[in-house]
């Protein structure tokens, strides 16, 4: 019995790494630009399709295609911020919600039109390999995804803590006006924040390809999980989003094991309600970093 639970926890932790990447992106945009990105999952989807086509056309391993998907999505993020998001800053909830929601809708349906609803998968030499750790089986592609997800998160942490631009972003997240008084250029900071967030989403997509199918609406579940993880981890808190993402992964895995295969939505709701009831400020109790 404990072996079953342990296996579920481990599986959940591994996929949680991906959820963490997506959640960090959402919380980064929310913390710095104060916009909730409904379309985050769709950028994961784009990352998946980029890796899919590179794998199919030039046999590039999805993990290697990080080198393509991340920069491509970074540029997308910068363009998105400069030409679209900037126009709704400070306009209040409604335009922001519906703008990113519309972008999400557009991307999903464009993907549907361009690529059809077919599931696209990529086979790598290691897709079905697994490591053994005592009684536990660790799926190799998931381990790789988890490891790289943690690496990228760590890199982001270092960036935010040590570089000037990173500190400027944290300052803008904490208090935009004072940050501007201190000489922070909001435009640049916002663009980089959105760019990084989307790059992380693209990375998540590429890392998913070896073991997850790509299809136009695949992003929605990631958006949903990310939103709950962001609330759980405290809005705007990157470390919180990381931990919450891992927790969501484990919760989902345990739910699938003990409640049933369709329990994804239930898990999401349960986590959200639990957070709101017990600790509405999230794990870090309202501290944006």
């Amino acid at each position, binding site marked *: 019995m404990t072996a079953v639970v342990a296996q579920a926890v481990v599986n959940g932790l591994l996929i949680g790494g991906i959820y963490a990447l997506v959640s960090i992106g959402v919380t980064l945009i929310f913390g710095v630009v104060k916009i909730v990105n409904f379309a985050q999952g769709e950028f994961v989807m784009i990352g998946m399709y980029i890796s899919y086509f590179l794998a199919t056309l030039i046999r590039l391993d999805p993990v290697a295609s990080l080198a393509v998907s991340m920069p491509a999505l970074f540029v997308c993020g910068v363009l998105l911020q400069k030409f*679209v998001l900037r126009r709704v800053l400070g*306009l209040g909830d409604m335009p922001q*919600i519906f703008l990113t*929601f519309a972008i999400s*809708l557009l991307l999903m349906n464009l993907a549907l039109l361009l690529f059809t609803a077919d599931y696209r998968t990529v086979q790598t030499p290691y897709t079905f390999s697994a490591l053994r750790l005592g009684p536990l089986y660790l799926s190799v592609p998931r381990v790789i995804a988890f490891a790289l997800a943690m690496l990228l998160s760590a890199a982001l942490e270092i960036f935010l803590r040590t570089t000037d631009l990173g500190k400027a972003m944290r300052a803008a997240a904490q208090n935009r*006006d004072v940050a501007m008084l201190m000489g922070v250029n909001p435009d640049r900071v916002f663009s980089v924040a959105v760019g990084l967030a989307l790059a992380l989403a693209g990375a998540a997509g590429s890392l998913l390809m070896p073991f997850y199918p790509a299809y136009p609406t695949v992003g929605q579940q990631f958006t949903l999980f990310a*939103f709950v993880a962001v609330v759980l981890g405290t809005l705007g808190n990157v470390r919180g989003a990381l931990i919450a993402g891992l927790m969501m992964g484990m919760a989902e895995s345990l739910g699938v094991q003990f409640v049933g295969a369709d329990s994804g939505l239930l898990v*999401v709701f349960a986590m959200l309600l639990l957070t709101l009831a017990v600790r509405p400020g999230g794990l870090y109790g309202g501290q944006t970093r």
Partner: protein
Amino acid sequence: MSHAFAIDIFIRVFLFAFIGVAWNLLGGYAQQLSLGHAAYFGLGAYTSTLLLIRAGVSPWIGMVAGGVVAALASLPIGALCFRLRGPYFAIATIGTAQTLMLLFLKFRDFAWGAVGTTIPNLGNSPWMMQFAAKAAYYYIALGLLALGLAVTYWVERSWMGYYLVAVGEDQAAAEAVGVNVPRIKRDIYLISAFLTGLAGTFYTQYIYFIDPNTAFSFNISVEAALVSIVGGIGTLWGPVLGSVLLEPASALAQSWLGGGAHAGVQLALYAVILIVVILWRPTGLLGALTAAYDRIVRAAPAGGPASDGTGILGTGPTVRKGLPLDG
């Protein structure tokens, strides 16, 4: 374009204007942006259908019953979801509609599951809300729209209307001034859900078919919000304008491009329209129209109070762009 096709478009325009008006009460005036109104549409539809097929109850009664069921459902859903603000509320509402769809997909014994059911064709039986002449549906849809507009008009001019706008514009300030925010939100949600439930019954009777994917369709939730946003959120006639613009466009797009081969065209089109409207006129096109009218007819400088929807159509409290309190 055949006569029947034209009437069908009119019916769609009225129906989605009505759903939009219902949505607008919650989403426009109270600014609680729901993306899960299909939940009430579906509940209304299933209630009347179950009453009709299992108990032979007339859909007219079933329609009211469906509205009541939807309204009652809004109580626990609201209690849960109103704890969240902004985009989180929206996500939670999406979740509730999805959950209901999943539940009804599983209820094979109780409610026909994924297969759904057709409405038994009783020929022309007005008492059972079935008509041989399409024009009858036209008048019912028009009647529903008139009902929705009347309710909105009355709410706008009542104390509730002022409380609503206060809550919508700044919930914290409204609370500070003594507005019973939870009660207002709950009450307007009841009304909004009830009306949406009525629409669900009508639609099912019109197309003679129901299944969870149609009844709880995300498309319906999106359209409910879309027609209001495009037309003029928080205004009386906004959803009507939005529906007049969007429904014919969508029907024509579908008939030209076909649903099967080009799945996703309709939603992609909606998405583009939504993006354009939000970037250009976030408060909706009604404001742009009234401003243009003022400029042409009155030859007076536009802008100022006339450009936010309170122009010639005099719609009472309207929603302005949010104050940039946090920059």
